[in-house]
């Protein structure tokens, strides 16, 4: 049975441009090598496949990796624009969150707070979505310089998702 519509409102965008400008100004002042890169803003790909037939991937910048993978580098202000492949059949108990710019306590207690892999599998079981991608992607979002994110990491992630024949990506910050 379809879930009833969840009531949402358009975000009140008044003041957001000013807040963003203040934030980006602070980041540029505080971190050498930063710059104000953003998206073009016109990219929009309509949902072509019904969700019940779609393969869904989770992509998070919450610092998610497996216990036997190299943790993200968080000891310097340089950031770490790398990624970790998270197989869909991972053991949730093996997930770790290496990120020093948010409190990872709740994610450590229940990884679904930032990486809702169990919820995704339940949605597949219910038929709400078609399947889960064979791989999901963990990244660490603290990167003062956005250039390697946009120039190297993002195209690589897009390529991994394409190779995995993903129809929809759920993007999650930490």
């Amino acid at each position, binding site marked *: 049975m379809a879930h009833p519509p969840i009531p949402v409102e358009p*975000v009140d965008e008044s003041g957001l441009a000013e807040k963003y400008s203040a*934030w980006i100004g602070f980041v540029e002042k505080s971190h050498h090598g930063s710059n104000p890169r953003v998206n073009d803003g016109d*990219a929009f790909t309509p949902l072509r496949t019904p969700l019940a037939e779609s393969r869904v991937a989770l992509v998070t910048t919450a610092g998610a990796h497996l216990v036997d993978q190299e943790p993200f580098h968080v000891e310097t202000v340089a950031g770490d624009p790398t990624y970790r492949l998270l197989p869909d059949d991972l053991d949730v108990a093996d997930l770790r969150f290496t990120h020093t710019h948010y409190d990872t306590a709740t994610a450590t207690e229940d990884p679904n707070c930032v990486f*809702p892999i169990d919820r995704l599998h339940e*949605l597949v079981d219910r038929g709400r979505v078609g399947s889960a991608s064979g791989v999901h992607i963990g990244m660490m979002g603290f990167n003062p310089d956005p250039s390697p994110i946009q120039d190297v990491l993002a195209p690589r992630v897009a390529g991994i998702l394409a190779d995995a024949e993903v129809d929809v*990506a759920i993007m999650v910050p930490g």
Partner: protein
Amino acid sequence: MCHRSVGLVQGTVEASGIPTVSVSMRPDVTFGVKVPRAAYVRFPHGNPFGEPNRPDQQHLVFEALLQLLESAEGPTFVELPFRWRRWGKWL
């Protein structure tokens, strides 16, 4: 910066032909980075899908994202109707 990083990856993935939707706890950053679909939720950093061990709440957020994927006909930024009650304070 998590929001900028995830937004930049989101923009590229969307441009590559894969529909995307993101959660946001920083509407100013998400607004500034410009993403195709995002849902702002008034939860603290580290809890975009809600409280730990609350699969009911986590499913509500997930369902809202799926509904946004189904309904958006162009770049869309909405606020979800959920509030944070853990720790005895509301955000």
